[in-house]
């Protein structure tokens, strides 16, 4: 009979989606053998398993893959490297001492004592309730991801006549997915005056199927006692408030919500690390270390990404850093330079950059952020105090596409102690 097992692990990685997988591979390649990846699902791959559409891997593999194919690349590599992964395991508690309690059907209760922890739990979807959309609470309301799971992992259709709220990529992808499987998608309503999805998806998921995209619109009522019978969509003003008199009723049996992703940080908060209200993830330095030594965060749990390729890249960095931490290979830091959101910039990651005593330890730093609205023909500027140290011209920037720029190792080592600000200059 399995008793409570106390297990020492050098690097514990929570989540075997693209983030956790990349971190594990990097940690192993850096020389850690005693590592373990835990995942709550029965199979590795995270959300990619249900993302059967293509568009993944263009940057990383220079080919366009579907989600499962992208995941398989990491699955194969992890198998090659003999990286231990324990599936169907839920981490239910973790503490600042890096003790993680997990439970699984196969192993019972396990307490892992980790030297380093990589948090890669991904994100969840914002539900209808959090938006307080008025109306009834019948069957037939799904977050787009849950509907996607039913369709792509179970082969069930959640509905026949569908309205979608939210024109982010998940909503757009599901518009097409449902249509191809015989549903009628009546409209995609989007609160903002612009879509946060890729143009490619607007064209190939909405235009291709004559599904109207209603910008500056939102759902103001849901009706139907047991099952959705219809929703009311209204136009919104500049303050995003519904305009009376613009209400239109859409008889339907399904409402899909694609209204925001929220990093799943319950465990992160248990570790009492510093959190960012903007990204809703941990505050990290450029090695993805949180405010706690030996605790790293990467992927969607840190900040919601658009491209899985960048998740992999970021997480590889985190995995390597976790390994270096355990192996004592981390360079001595001379200063931690804060990075702040300037005009037009939302959620810069990392929020701190390490400056090393030994310049040879420095690496290039990729800074990522989102613009607060659509910009055309602007310059992204990084200021060291008040001095510009990097300027990049951007023809177009949109909140739906995470922006990034690279600060070279040399630049980083030459920064003053004033701290950096990233801003958009028109």
């Amino acid at each position, binding site marked *: 009979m*399995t008793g409570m097992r106390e297990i020492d692990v050098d690097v514990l990685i929570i989540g075997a989606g693209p983030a956790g997988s990349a971190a594990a591979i990097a940690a192993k390649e850096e020389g850690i053998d005693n590592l373990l990846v835990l995942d709550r699902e029965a199979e590795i791959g995270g959300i990619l398993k249900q993302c059967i559409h293509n568009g993944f891997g263009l940057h990383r593999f220079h080919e366009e893959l579907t989600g499962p194919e992208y995941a398989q690349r990491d699955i194969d590599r992890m198998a090659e490297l003999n990286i231990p992964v324990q599936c169907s395991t839920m981490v239910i508690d973790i503490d600042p001492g890096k003790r993680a309690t997990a439970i699984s059907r196969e192993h019972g209760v396990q307490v892992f004592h980790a030297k380093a922890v990589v948090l890669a739990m991904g994100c*969840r979807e914002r*539900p209808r309730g959090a938006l307080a959309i*008025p109306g009834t609470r019948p069957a037939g309301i799904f977050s787009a991801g849950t509907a996607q799971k039913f369709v792509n992992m179970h082969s069930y259709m959640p509905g026949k006549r569908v309205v979608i709220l939210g024109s982010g990529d998940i909503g757009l992808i599901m518009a097409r997915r449902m249509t191809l499987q015989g549903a009628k998608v009546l409209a995609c309503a989007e609160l903002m005056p612009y879509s946060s999805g890729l143009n490619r998806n607007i064209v190939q998921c909405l235009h291709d199927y*004559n599904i109207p995209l209603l910008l500056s619109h939102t759902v103001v009522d849901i009706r139907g006692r047991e099952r959705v019978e219809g929703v009311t969509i209204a136009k919104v003003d500049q303050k995003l408030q519904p305009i009376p008199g613009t209400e239109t009723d859409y008889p339907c049996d399904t409402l899909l919500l694609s209204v925001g992703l929220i990093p799943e940080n319950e465990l992160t908060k248990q570790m009492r690390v510093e959190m960012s209200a903007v990204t809703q993830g941990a505050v990290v330095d450029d090695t993805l270390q949180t405010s706690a030594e030996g605790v790293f965060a990467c992927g969607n749990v840190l900040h919601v990404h658009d491209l899985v390729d960048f998740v992999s890249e970021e997480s590889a960095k985190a995995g390597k850093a976790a390994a270096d931490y355990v192996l004592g290979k981390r360079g001595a830091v001379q200063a931690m330079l804060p990075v702040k959101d300037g005009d037009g910039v939302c959620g810069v990651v990392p929020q701190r950059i390490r400056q090393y005593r030994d310049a040879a330890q420095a690496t290039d730093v990729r800074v990522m952020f989102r613009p607060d609205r659509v910009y055309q023909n602007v310059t992204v500027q990084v200021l060291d105090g008040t001095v510009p140290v990097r300027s990049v011209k951007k023809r177009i920037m949109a909140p739906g596409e995470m922006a990034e720029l690279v600060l070279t190792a040399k630049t980083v080592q030459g920064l003053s102690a004033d701290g950096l600000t990233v801003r958009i200059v028109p």
Partner: protein
Amino acid sequence: MKRNIVIIGGGVIGCATARELSAFEADVLLVERAADVSEGSSKANSGLVHAGYDAVPGSQKARFNVQGSRMFEAMCKEVNAPYVRNGAMVLAFDEQQIETLRELKEQGEKNGVDGLEIIGREQVLALEEHTNPEVLAALLVKSGAITAPYELTYALADHAKVNGVDFQMNTEVRRIEKTERGFVLHTSRGDILTDCVVNCAGIGSGELHNQLSPRKVKIIPRKGEYYLFDHEIKPMFAHTMFQTPTKMGKGVLVTPTVHRNIMLGPTAKDVQDGMDVSTTKEALQMVREKSTLTWPKENLKTVITTFAGIRAHEAGGDFIVGAVEGAKGAYEAVGIESPGLSSAPAIGLYLAEMIADNFELKKKKKRIPAPTRSKPFSEMTNEERLEAYQRDPAYGTVVCRCEQVTEAEVRAAIHRPVGATTVDGVKRRIRAGMGRCQGGFCSPRVMEILSEELGVDLMQVTKSGGESRVLIGRIEDEKPEGDDRHA
């Protein structure tokens, strides 16, 4: 086949009455219109166990509230339902309101309520630091408590069931006819003949009463809307925080739940349709605005859901509990609005004793105790978790991440004496789906377990019975709907 006693309505009142009657030698059937018990007013209310200072002295509300409030803790313990005596406060922001507090205190003492004290501003803020600093005084109600009204209703139903009460769901009583043979209940599933009928039909109780009694009543459905926040280790408020009451009711309150969520609400709006529990923009806005009087720093960032409940307000303003006037053998609990939940133990006992007396029912020598409920996994220590797992490996699979509910508990919810047969039934019994992701992660898993346990295809699983199927078909069954699909 003639029944002895049929209870109409599986809310907290019907189930409390069923449970009390199950102490007697009698054939008892409870019929419920929905697919499960606790689907009406009992599932969506503030969950408060009122002390009883608010009811008019001499009224049935006062009598049953105070008695019920005194019985509540023991009853919850006996049936394994949650109960927290967190205390309440009624806040006063001006002199006139302070005067009202004094009146409430006096009224409460007249009703027999103990532990009422008027406290000053400093004490209020010392007890509840997030209260609006403009508060002047408060009535501290030490016996105020909270429960989870649906968990209680399920627990009462289970206890009644193991002691012989039959439950029949999906049975709507449309008409009651008094004949020489007894009462004929014309239901959506055929006729039922019974000696004794007990009308605990909540929002529908007025209609049924009027079919039986020459003295007519009028039920005015009164809707109340709420915000529910994510739970935290230490909620912003420990006490249930009232504002000084008005004619429409006890006003918007800020209260913790037994699961450490904060809840704001309710409003009170009379509606035409007793089944209308939709939320509205106006009422939710009102809840937000009014609750800031108590909690000025409230921000809606961690709201996880909103909901509405319905109350059966009787035009006369009081409960109508007892024998039905002009219909021998018929009993009722009509117009059960606040403090209905608090009164449930007392009403159940009163009706049962009255019925037992009139029908000369023999008391059973022994009653089977309520089914024990394991401690929720989410509250267990690691040692307890290990032990639970060793007993049942299904504890090893966490189904609901947000509320830490395991597969073992989902299955147990389905196997309870009055077990869950729907997604909502599982949700309200063991909280899977009540957390911050509102079922986004767990609902496919809960549905799979329901499908397995009930022996039905995943497609047949419903949210709350009836036509509320979650899925509409399998992929291969769906054909594209016509050719206006692409440009």
